């Protein structure tokens, strides 16, 4: 069927203009919480499952072994207990940093965040020292299942701590050179949530790997 061009009505923007793809609301249709916080908690949920996989593997291998070495005979529990203490202290200093950011105290934020970065770095340093001593003694990850699981769990956690230190350091640099205004405190809080999560994981790992 042929249609004459004259039969086609002219373009009328009131009628023919493309409609928006999404409905426009007069309220925020997002989740009733800060989106950054929503995203970080979603991310942390995946992290929980990641570490659960590692710990679950450890439980399977340990329960499936006829014998298992006493961790106290192989690992330096005392120095690691000190390291645990450091990480808990760093969590407390991080909370203080977030608290300062919320009231717009940039100086206080810098002080507490710098302390958090310093203590986090000490934790990574002590773990690196522990690894160096173990490896020097010939305790490599491929020696037996005990060492394989030990390095897998503590290694991945150590990487997370290092990432947390770098994240906190970036915020510290931003606070020093640009200042973080009160309304932007969420940047600090998100880093804090990640940092506390790393602390929480270590609390469980320390118990399972070093003490049990």
């Amino acid at each position, binding site marked *: 069927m042929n249609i004459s061009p004259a039969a086609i009505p002219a373009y009328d923007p009131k009628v023919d203009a493309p409609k928006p793809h999404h409905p426009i609301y007069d309220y925020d249709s997002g*989740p*009733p*919480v800060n989106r950054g*916080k*929503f995203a970080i*908690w*979603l991310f*942390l*949920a995946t992290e*929980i*499952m990641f570490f*659960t*996989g590692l710990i*679950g593997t450890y*439980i*399977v*291998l340990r*329960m*499936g*072994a*006829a*014998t*298992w*070495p*006493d961790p*106290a*005979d*192989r690992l330096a*529990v005392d120095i690691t*207990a000190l390291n*645990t*203490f450091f990480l*808990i*202290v760093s*969590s*407390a200093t*991080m*909370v*203080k940093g*977030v*608290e300062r950011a*919320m009231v717009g105290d940039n100086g206080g934020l810098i002080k507490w965040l710098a302390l958090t970065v310093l203590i986090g770095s000490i934790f990574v340093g002590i773990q690196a020292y522990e690894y160096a001593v173990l490896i020097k*003694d010939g305790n490599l990850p491929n*020696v*037996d*299942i005990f060492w394989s699981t030990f390095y897998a769990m503590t290694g991945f956690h150590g990487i997370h701590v290092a990432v947390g230190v770098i994240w906190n350091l970036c915020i510290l640099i931003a606070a020093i050179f640009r200042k973080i205004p009160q309304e932007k405190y969420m940047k600090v809080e998100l880093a*804090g*949530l990640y940092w*506390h*999560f790393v*602390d*929480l994981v270590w*609390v*469980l790992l*320390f*118990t*399972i790997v*070093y*003490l*049990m």
Partner: protein
Amino acid sequence: MAHGKDLGYSIFRIFVILFILTAVEVAWGMFLREPRWLLWSGLLVCAVWKGLLILMYFMHMRFEKMIVWSLILPTPLLVAVVLFANMPDTVFNEKRDYKIGYLIDQTGEVVNGLDPEHPAKGRGKPHGHQPEGEAAGH
């Protein structure tokens, strides 16, 4: 969002409780090795307690809305699924013999393993169940 002392909790107080729990846990783990059930249950209580304190106060979950809780609540269920799915390989497996030794030779056999008479560099004292008539780790 209110936080820290704005909400009526003291950061220092939580920190002190965490410190005390860590000290108790380490002492428990170093000096109360037997019986194992007492060791493990005590350690787990301390670890879970500390974890909850960090989660509820430092991560301020206690003050969060349900939308944030809904992101985390499914994970314990998934954790339970993972652990229960592994049960056949652990609890119900009567042929558990994963090799835990100090050295494994080229054939895959464990040498100089957890034999208490030949501990490698004084490490690797065995404990727990050992199959009858079988040297530990061999």
